[in-house]
């Protein structure tokens, strides 16, 4: 059974023993990327009705880059997603912890969290406009809600799963609730917090198009909707690839942060 171990603590996968696991991962990643693009090219070549191949999409991307649209859109969208995501996860940590910690808070809040979590963002757009208008706050709120509602579950579950003896140990050492929360619950919940953050990030990005339905003037989601009016599939694909790539990049950053934050964990594999 292959296991890679950066710490060198255990057996490594046989096939990768010669090279370091990091290089190997890079290599496999590159192979995987090439395979994906190849498949796409194939699908386009087989003429699956209307799927533009990598070539035309790259050409359109070059155009949009040249006239600055793509960069402006990306900057605007990243700002919205980041703001919504950061606010959302920042709010999810205390709320999820409160729910995990105090049964009363849980009984009060959880049904509402669960209730709103399943509401499609598309459905609340009219309401958002009525309550918050059509400017940035409305768009960011839609993203915020998506990020918050999907990450709060992880935080909550993480807090519930915190090892009781560690909490007991902290109590015996004189820690009170706020101290226990900051110094025991948060670090013990780190793996769950990162699941939450990553899920929240995904939710934030995938709500972008919905958010930019609210009178956006710029942004990747807006651009894709406009392209839909003219059924401009090349531009839509440029949008998809840009969103995917930006999302992937931000996710990588989160993973790196997680790796740093959880060196203390007895990990099975890299």
């Amino acid at each position: 059974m292959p296991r890679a171990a950066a710490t060198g603590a255990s057996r490594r996968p046989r096939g990768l023993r010669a090279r370091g696991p990091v290089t190997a991962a890079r290599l496999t990643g590159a192979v995987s990327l090439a395979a994906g693009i190849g498949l796409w090219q194939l699908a386009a070549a087989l003429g699956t009705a209307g799927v533009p191949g990598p070539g035309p999409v790259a050409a359109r991307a070059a155009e949009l880059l040249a006239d600055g649209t793509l960069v402006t859109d990306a900057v605007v969208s990243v700002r919205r997603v980041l703001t919504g995501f950061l606010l959302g996860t920042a709010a999810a940590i205390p709320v999820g912890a409160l729910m995990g910690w105090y049964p009363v808070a849980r009984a009060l809040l959880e049904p509402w969290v669960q209730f709103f979590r399943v509401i499609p963002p598309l459905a609340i757009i009219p309401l958002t406009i009525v309550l918050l208008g059509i400017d940035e706050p409305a768009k960011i709120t839609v993203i915020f809600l998506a990020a918050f509602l999907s990450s709060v579950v992880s935080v909550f579950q993480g807090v519930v799963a915190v090892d009781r003896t560690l909490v007991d140990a902290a109590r015996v050492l004189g820690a009170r609730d706020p101290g226990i929360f900051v110094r025991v619950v948060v670090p013990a919940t780190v793996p769950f917090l990162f699941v939450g953050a990553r899920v929240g990030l995904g939710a934030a990005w995938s709500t972008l198009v919905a958010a930019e339905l609210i009178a956006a003037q710029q942004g990747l989601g807006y651009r894709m909707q406009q392209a839909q009016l003219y059924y401009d599939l090349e531009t839509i694909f440029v949008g998809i690839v840009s969103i995917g790539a930006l999302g992937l990049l931000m996710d990588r950053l989160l993973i790196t942060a997680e790796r740093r934050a959880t060196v203390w964990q007895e990990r099975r594999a890299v």
Partner: protein
Amino acid sequence: DGDRDRSVDFGYIADYNQAGLLAVARERGLWKEHGIRATYKVFTDGPTQITALGAGDLDFGTIGPGATWLPASGRATVVAVNQLGRADRVVALPGRGIDRIADLKGKRVAVPEGTSGDMILGLALDRAGLSRDDVRIVPMAPATAVAALASRQVDAAALWYPLLATVEKRVPGLVRLAESADFAAEFAFPSSFVAAPGAVDKNRELVEDVVRVLQKANDFRYANPEKTVAITAGFLRLDRDAVAADARNTQPLSTAELVAAGRDGTVARWFTALQGFFVRNGKLDAPVPVEKFYAGDLYTRAAAR
């Protein structure tokens, strides 16, 4: 505070029909001429603009014929008619044995509900003596309908240009079963500029000035169709050919013609006919007098200045 009073937020949809006048007004400095600071906000549909009007986030909006039931039910006031649309078509895929509307019987027809495409389909079915139950209506959002038709997942669709242009690129030889022009006698498809209900009474002078700007832009468009296409394409950052193709499916009217049409009751006839359609669809309970939601005298007065 006079300065603040003379700034307006204008909503629009990013196609030639609904953005053309705003593009011209900005390009030709018409707003400045009237001392108005106009901000444009792009939307993807009419109803969202009406929501924003109601919430006070927008002063004016641009809607297509399909959304006209919203002003008719008191949620907005039409301050100006934009132009008539002729872009709608009922089309069928080639090779499915569909040559006439009557052949649609039992076939799958993609329709974005409540749009002008939907109206054309209804009229066409009526004329062919079919009811909506005789065909398999597949309600779909516009972009979705394009994908469905282009990938041959449905037999026919009621859509409009420029969407159909894309389908044509992928499916040559689309069969045209019906189009807006076929019903010009009974039906017109006016798109309009709307304001929040009550805005006309509250801010009469400003609204009149805004309408005046729109009229000047309208006359420019009427006189210079090619330039208008160029200006709009630049404004929307779209390919000029695509916009020109769009423009071919519209019927611009001069301001004078619109004033006359308002006087002789033509505009009222257009809107009344549309209301009949909405009542049949259940969007409206009953038709309302057109003057309740169309500020026709304001349009006339503005044109007279």
